[in-house]
C-alpha cells in the first residue's frame, strides 16, 4: 500500500496536541526520498520504495526510512538500492538489514514464536469471544424456561390479585 508511508512521529505530535518538546531533531521537514537517490530502473525503484516503507529508521520513532529525513535513513535507503542493484531479492535485502541492525529494523515483526502473542491476539480474541458469545446465547436459551418468580414477587402478586378478587 503506497499510501501508508508516513512520519508517525510528526502526526503524533500533531494529533496529540501537546508536544512541546524542546527544539529537537525531529522537526526538519526535509523529505525522505529525494530525486537524486532514485534508481533509473522504475521496476527496481518501485521495489526499493516498497521495501523502504517496511523498514524502520533506527534513530527515529516509528518512522520508516522512506519517510525519514534523518541521515541514517538516507544511508539505509541508499543501501537498499545498492543491494537491489547488486541483484538481491527482496528477502535477501531484508535479511541483510536484519543481520546488521536486528529485528528492530522491521516495522512488521516476523511471524515467529517470539512474536506469537502479537500475531495471535486478533485470532484468539475473535475465536474465544465468538465461542463465548455463542455458548452464552444458546446456553441461556436452553437453560431457561419461563422465569421463575422469587418468593417476594409471588407474594406481591398474591397481594395485588387478592385486592382485586
Amino acid at each position, binding site marked *: 500500500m503506497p499510501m501508508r508511508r508516513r512520519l508517525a512521529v510528526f502526526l503524533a*505530535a500533531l*494529533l496529540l496536541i501537546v508536544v512541546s518538546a524542546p527544539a529537537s531533531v525531529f522537526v526538519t521537514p526535509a523529505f525522505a526520498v529525494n530525486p537524486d537517490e532514485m534508481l533509473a530502473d522504475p521496476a527496481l525503484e518501485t521495489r526499493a520504495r516498497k521495501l523502504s516503507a517496511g523498514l524502520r529508521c533506527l534513530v527515529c520513532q516509528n518512522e520508516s526510512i522512506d519517510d525519514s529525513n534523518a541521515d541514517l535513513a538516507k544511508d539505509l535507503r541508499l543501501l537498499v538500492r545498492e543491494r537491489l542493484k547488486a541483484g538481491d531479492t527482496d528477502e535477501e535485502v531484508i535479511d541483510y538489514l536484519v543481520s546488521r541492525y536486528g529485528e528492530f529494523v522491521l516495522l512488521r515483526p516476523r511471524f515467529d514464536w517470539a512474536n506469537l502473542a502479537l500475531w495471535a*491476539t486478533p485470532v484468539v480474541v*475473535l475465536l474465544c*469471544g465468538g465461542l463465548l458469545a455463542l455458548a452464552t446465547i444458546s446456553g441461556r436459551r436452553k437453560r431457561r424456561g419461563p422465569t421463575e418468580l422469587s418468593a417476594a414477587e409471588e407474594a406481591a402478586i398474591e397481594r395485588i390479585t387478592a385486592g382485586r378478587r
Partner: protein
Amino acid sequence: MIVEIGHFALVLSLSVALVQSVLPMLGARRGDQRLMETGTIAASGGFVLIAIAFSALMASYVTSDFSVLNVFENSNSRQPLLYKFTSTWGNHEGSMLLWVLILAFFGALVALFGRDLPATLKANVLSVQAWILAAFLLFILLTSNPFQRLDPAPMEGQDLNPILQDVGLAIHPPMLYLGYVGFSIAFSFAIAALIDGRIDAAWARWVRPWTLIAWIFLTLGIAMGSYWAYYELGWGGWWFWDPVENASFMPWLAGTALLHSALVMEKRAALKIWTILLAILTFSLSLLGTFLVRSGVLTSVHAFATDPARGVFILAILCLFIGGALVLFALRASALEGGGLFAPISREGALVFNNLFLTTAAATVLVGTLYPLLLEVVAGEKISVGAPFFDLTFGPVMVPLLFAVPFGPLLGWKRGDLLGAAQRLYFAAGCALAALVGILAYTGGTKILTAFGFALAFWLLFGSLTDLFSRAAFLKKGWRTGLARFVGLPRSAFGTALAHFGLGVTLLGIVSVSSFQEEVITTMAPGSSVEIAGYSLTFDRIAQRPGANFDAQAVHFSVRRDGVVMTEIDSSKRFFPVRQMTTTESGIWTHGFSQLYVSLGDPSADKQSIVVRIWWKPLVTLIWIGAVFMAVGGAFSLADRRLRVGAPERSRRKASLAEA
C-alpha cells in the same frame, strides 16, 4: 496575582473534589437526602473553580506573562493572538488542566441535567466522578503545576512548538478531550451501578446519551487530527498507526461497541454484564491513552514528560481505577443476572457480532501498541510494530464487520429473518456488484482487491440507506405516502443510517486514495512543469514572505488542464527562528472530492531548484466527510425522543392531567 488566584482555585477545587468523593456516596448509603445533594453543589462549584484556574493560566498566556515558567517555555510575545490562547493547552501542564476542566465540566452537566436520575444513582455517579477528578488534580498539583513562577522573569518566551501553531490546535485537543474524558461518565455510571448492585434498562437509557455525546466529539476530534496531520506534515498521509493515534483510536473502537451494546440493554435488558464491562474498558482505554502520552513511556517526541515521577503517578492512577473497577466488577457482576433471550440471528445477535469484532479490533490495536514496550521490559528485546502490521491485522478484522453492517438494522429483535433482510438488500448488492465489475473493467482486471474495496464501500453506502427507504415504502405506497412515512421515521433510524452511511463514505475515500493516488517527486526550478493525473503544474515563482514570528519561503504554482489554467497553488516552508525549526505549509487544491497536494522539500545545493512532492489524491476528502456523517448520525440519535429521559413520562402525565 491572577496566577496565584488560579493556583489557589485549583487547590480549592481539589478539596471540593475530596468532599464530593465522599459525602454524596455516604448520603446514598444512609438515604440522607441532604448529604446526597452536596454532590450537585460540589460538582458545579468544582467546575467553576477549575474554570477560574484555567482562565488564569490562559490570561497569563494572552498577556505573555513570562514570570510563569509554563508560559515562558511555551509561548512567545510575537505569536498571533489565536496561538496565545491555544498555547494554553499546547504543553503538558496546560493540557492536563484542560483534561480536568473537561472532566469537571461533564460532572457539572450530570449534576445540573441529571434531575430525573434516581437520587442515589446520581449521588454515586458524582462521587465516582470526583474520585477521578481528585486523582488528576493531585497529579497536576504535585507533579505538573502550570502556575510555577520564574524569578527573575525573562524578557522573551521560547515559543510554542511551530507545528502546533495552527488553527488545528484550537479545535483538535478540546474536541478529542471532550470525547476521551466524556467516557468517564459511562464509567462512573457503571461503577455506581455496581456499587448499588442494581442495573436495568433505564440505566442504559441514561448512559447512552452521555456515551453518544462523548463519541460524537471523539469521532470529530480524531477526524480533525487526521486532517490536520495530513495538511501540516507535508507527507500527504492521513493515518500513521502511531502509538499516540492508537491511544485515541482504541477508546473510539470500544466506545462504538458500547453505544451498540447499550442499545441492546436498553431495548431488551440483555447484555447487562457485558455493557458494564465495556463501559469500564472504554474509559480505561482513555486512561491508558493518557498514560501512554503523558508518562513518556513511548520514548518518542511526545515523551516530553521526562520526569519519571509523572509516569509513575499516572501509572498509579491507571492501576487504581482500572484495577479497582475490574475487582468491583468481578465481585458484583454475578449479581446482575438475566435479560431477554434472543436467537443468534436477530438484532441482538447482530449487535453482539458488532461488539465481537470491534472488541477484537480494539484488542489488536492495543496489543500492537503495547507489545514492543512489554517485550522490551520482559525480554529486553527491541522490536518495532508499525503500519504494515496494522494494515495486515486490523483490515481483515474490519472486513466481516463492514460487510455485516447493512444487515443489522434490518433484522428483527429476538429472532431475525436473515433471508428476508438479504432480499431487501438486493439493490445495495446490485450497486456493489456494479462497482466491482466497473473497477475491474477500468483497471483491466489488475486490481482485484481494490475492486472488492469499492464494492464493499458501495454495499455500505446503499445498504445503510435501505432501512430508511424500505420503512418509508416508497415503492409500495407511492412517493407521497412514502415521503410522509419517511419524515415520520424516528430520528434514531436516521441516526443509524447516517452513521453507517458515513462509514461507507470514509471507506470509499480510503480505498480510492490507497489505490489510485498518483505521486511525483522531482526537482523543479522557476518555469519548469510536471504532469500529474492529467494536470500540468508549472513552477511560476518563489518568494520570501515574512510572518509574525517566522519567515516563509513560498512557491507559486499554476495548474493547467489542456492548457487552461484551473487554479493556482501556494506551497511554502516556514522557518521559526526562536526554535530554529522549519514547518511545511502544503499547497492543496480541492477539486470535487479530490485534492492536488503540493509540498516543498529541500532546495538544491546551488539554490537554483527545489525538491517538490506532488500527489493527486482522488476522493481523499471523503475520508473526513464520512466522519462528519457519523457525527451527524450520532447527533440525530441523540435528538431521538426515546433518549430524552423523562420526556415520554412528562407528556403522559400531562395527558392524564388533561383527561382528569
